[in-house]
């Protein structure tokens, strides 16, 4: 056998004496245990009661109990002189249970008339908030606001306070948490007044990487401290400012720290005061600024744009070369260049270099050659002149054409007509002539 689960408490019901509406039997000992859900009371209303009347309900009696406490003993009927009739007034249990006992003796003189009783009961929500304070001295249910709900109640707090884990007491709200807005205002609990109790609050300002936080404390700053020759010492009360990669700073005393530039996108403030001493607290405004990158510098034979007085996070710059020069990065030519100021205050890429372009070797001339007139290593603005292997070949057209290495990396002729020189053979002109002197 295993235990059956307890039945769900009913929200309402009915109780009546055995054999009702027929007269009840003698020597009865009946009991009914009524129960409703927690947070409810039982309201018991008798629809009919007709039990043998006697003084003090000595013979037959219906007893209503709350635990061991007798709420009422009833017998008789509406018009009986003896007995105690509950009338039309309902009986309200202090809690969610009620016990009814019905006892009859062995003698029912008016047996044919005493039919017993019939009663209805229902669950009534208990207004815990209106109940008197418990006698155990634990105090009111809620320290500030009590809200009755069906079958239960809730505690709440005024603005500026928050509910403690016990769900009934309210303490001053820290106003702490994580702040990720670009700017904001923070202050200690109760500021500019001291809080009534010890507090331990944490404020975290955390913004997007690439931005730095600046704290600006107001002048009204007071955190209890012990004054020494070296300055105030924060023994029991302090505001600790922690910036990553830096030693935490403990602030106290009566002098405002003023402006603190953190150079960080994250700052944590821990405010701690105990019940000793008195601190009125602090308030600050914080703002964020884009991280700054160093001046990018210049590119020889080129230029960097745009030219700004300062370069901030997410700013882009581009580099271009002067005509006749090409962009080079790590020994490789690149078509274009831009770099961004990163969140760490460094440029994404270093500046490139501008190297002079070259046109490559000029195209060889069949049966001829190329002479460099000026310039160096086929570089921009170098000038070459073609010639033919005379006297066996000569330039077509007989025009000496020079070619210049232009910015498009092509050798371009100075002659609009001739694009490519050609050597053509010279005919009929031997290098030696038959010479005869004898006549």
């Amino acid at each position, binding site marked *: 056998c295993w235990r059956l689960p307890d039945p769900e408490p009913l929200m309402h019901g009915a109780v009546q004496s055995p054999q009702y509406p027929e007269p009840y039997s003698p020597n009865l000992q009946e009991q009914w245990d009524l129960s409703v859900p927690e947070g409810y009371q039982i309201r018991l209303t008798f629809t009919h009661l007709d039990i043998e009347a006697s003084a003090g309900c000595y013979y037959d009696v219906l007893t209503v109990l709350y635990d061991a406490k007798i709420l009422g003993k009833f017998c008789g009927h509406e018009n009986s002189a003896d007995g105690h009739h509950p009338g039309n007034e309902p009986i309200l249990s202090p809690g969610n249970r009620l016990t009814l006992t019905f006892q009859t003796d062995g003698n029912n003189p008016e047996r044919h008339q005493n039919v017993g009783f019939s009663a209805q009961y229902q669950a009534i929500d208990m207004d815990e908030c209106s109940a008197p304070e418990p006698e155990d001295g634990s105090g009111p249910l809620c320290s500030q606001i009590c809200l009755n709900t069906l079958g239960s109640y809730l505690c709440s707090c005024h603005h500026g306070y928050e509910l403690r884990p016990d769900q009934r007491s309210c303490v001053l709200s820290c106003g702490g948490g994580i702040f990720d807005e670009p700017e904001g205002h923070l202050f200690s609990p109760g500021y500019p007044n001291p809080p009534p109790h010890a507090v331990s609050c944490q404020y975290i300002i955390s913004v997007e990487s690439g931005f730095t936080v600046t704290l600006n404390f107001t002048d009204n700053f007071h955190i209890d401290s012990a004054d020494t020759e070296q300055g105030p010492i924060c023994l029991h009360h302090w505001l600790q400012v922690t910036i990553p990669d830096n030693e935490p700073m403990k602030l106290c005393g009566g002098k405002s720290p003023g402006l603190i530039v953190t150079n960080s996108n994250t700052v944590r403030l821990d405010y701690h005061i105990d019940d000793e001493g008195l601190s009125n607290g602090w308030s600050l405004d914080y703002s964020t600024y884009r991280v700054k990158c160093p001046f990018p510098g210049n590119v020889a034979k080129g230029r960097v744009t745009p030219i700004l007085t300062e370069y901030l996070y997410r700013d882009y710059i581009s580099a271009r070369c002067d005509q006749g020069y090409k962009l080079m990065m790590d020994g490789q030519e690149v078509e274009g260049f831009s770099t961004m100021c990163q969140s760490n205050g460094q440029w994404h890429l270093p500046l490139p270099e501008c190297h002079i372009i070259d046109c490559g070797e000029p195209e060889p001339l069949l*049966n001829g050659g190329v002479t460099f007139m000026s310039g160096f290593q086929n570089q921009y603005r170098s000038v070459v002149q073609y010639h033919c292997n005379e006297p*066996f070949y000569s330039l077509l057209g007989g025009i000496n054409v020079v070619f210049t290495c232009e910015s498009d990396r092509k050798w371009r002729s100075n002659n609009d007509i001739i694009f490519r020189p050609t050597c053509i*053979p010279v*005919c*009929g*002109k*031997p*290098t*030696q*002539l038959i010479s005869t002197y004898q006549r």
Partner: protein
Amino acid sequence: IIGGSDAPDDTIPWQVMLSIDGGRGGGMVIGDRWIMTAAHNVMHDGNVVPNETVRIYMGLTNVNTLMNSPVYAASIHTHPLYNNPNLVDFNHDIALIKIQDPITFNSSVMPICLPAEGATYVTGTMGLVSGFGVTETDKRRILTNKMKYVQVPVVEQQACSDSITLLKKKKVLVPILTNNMFCAGVPEGGKDSCQGDSGGPYALRDDGRFWAAGIVSWGFDCGQRGTYGVYTRVINYIDWINKTMQEN
């Protein structure tokens, strides 16, 4: 070449020697891939000789010092009107040989110019004919190993025609002199081209530049009195020469 002299090096750089099936002939460079010669040099029994039988030597004046390899023909183009089955009709005796690889000219190999438009063959003008053909030494005819040249004047066409008419009376078969030919030589004989010189150049000089006026074609014997050498009149074939070179 009868009555001539050895050609010094680099004086006649357009002269080539053809060796075709053991026979010797002449030719001249007219372009970096073209040799001009006589059609009868490259014909045998009425057919053009195979390309591989034509060996072309350039840049030499002494056959004995032949050091370079011959150049071979890539294609042979005879004048379409040349028809000489019995070797008595030398009309249109002109041919072009295309060689496989282009020539790089130097002092020993250079082209001769083609006739300019309006060029004239003035009677008495001295021309330069050259070749590796038969020469005469001590009244003996020998095949020279050295390039020779001789300067002979252009002969008046009628005078040349008359000399041939005279021969007709003595010979059975006499080639016909046409206007596509001209004569050069001296009436007293002793200076002429000869066998082995066929296809070679007869060059005239204008303003210091030599041009190909004629191609050694035919004649009666060599250097005889009252006879002249007969040459293909190149100026009549300029159109055909240009067309052939362009089409190929």
